[in-house]
């Protein structure tokens, strides 16, 4: 986690292509999942990694819709040296997360959920960065390398 919004991933990656999906309905969550699946498959991720990526997208896109109502998912196909991967940014201008540490320990839910979406997604990815405050909303960036 960082305070300045930069990714915690030290590797500098080159962006090959990218796209965005606006998420403000349940159908958009489905669309975000489908787009992430298509991109991850094109990059050549294994079936299990595709499942990890799409499951993470489902958690974070649903959170945006549920807690911030409206947000944007940006996907990027990235490359660093010989490694290829995917970066996904979930950006909203909602109320922000007040107990970030609690959320990362899966000890905090305001929706009667299991409170595991964010902590679980972090485990599925190779890099995870969360910036959140009441003024700017929440930005979560994740990366998965092949």
């Amino acid at each position: 986690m960082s305070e300045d919004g930069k990714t915690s991933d030290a590797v500098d990656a080159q962006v090959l292509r990218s796209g965005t999906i606006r998420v403000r309905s349940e159908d958009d969550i489905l669309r975000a999942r489908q787009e992430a699946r298509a991109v991850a498959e094109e990059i050549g991720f294994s079936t299990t990694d595709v499942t990890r990526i799409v499951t993470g997208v489902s958690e974070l896109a649903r959170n945006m819709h549920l807690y911030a109502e409206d947000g944007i998912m940006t996907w990027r196909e990235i490359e660093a040296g010989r490694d290829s991967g995917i970066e996904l940014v979930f950006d909203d201008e909602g109320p922000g997360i007040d107990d970030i540490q609690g959320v990362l320990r899966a000890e905090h839910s305001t929706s009667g959920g299991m409170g595991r979406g964010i902590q679980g997604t972090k485990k599925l990815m190779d890099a995870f960065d969360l910036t959140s405050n009441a003024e700017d909303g929440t930005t979560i960036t994740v990366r998965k390398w092949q």
Partner: protein
Amino acid sequence: MTASESAAVTQVYDVLIAAFPGRPTDQAVDNLQQEVLNQMNETDPRGVILDISEVTTLDSFFARVISETAGMVELMGGRAIVVGMRPSVAITAAELGFGLDSVDTARSTDHALLMLGVTVEDADDVAAESESEAATTHDDGDRSGSALSPGGGR
């Protein structure tokens, strides 16, 4: 979408089979849960098989609905068995920590029917039928249902 959601719950012998769609919206998942409970009420089956073989993304919401549905079926006096979890889905669910711990699972529909106490003779018929019916069971429940009912179709 509504038509295909309601067609996803079918009856085989005195067991309900609910096939969860592969890439559903949250609303579609909720609808299917409702449909399972309605049919549970109408047909009083001995059990419900929750078929997730088409499901490629089991996130926390979906896992919760499946656990909840199984719990409600049990409260209504039936037994619920989840079948068909894909290996990649099982791996991801375990890593996320959303195992379906409190839910019975089976490798296949045949195995689930055995667990539900469908007799060996019935199960043999089911095994034979499922070779050809596997692909159509979801939307062709009436035909397979009558073929498997005692005395039906023989």
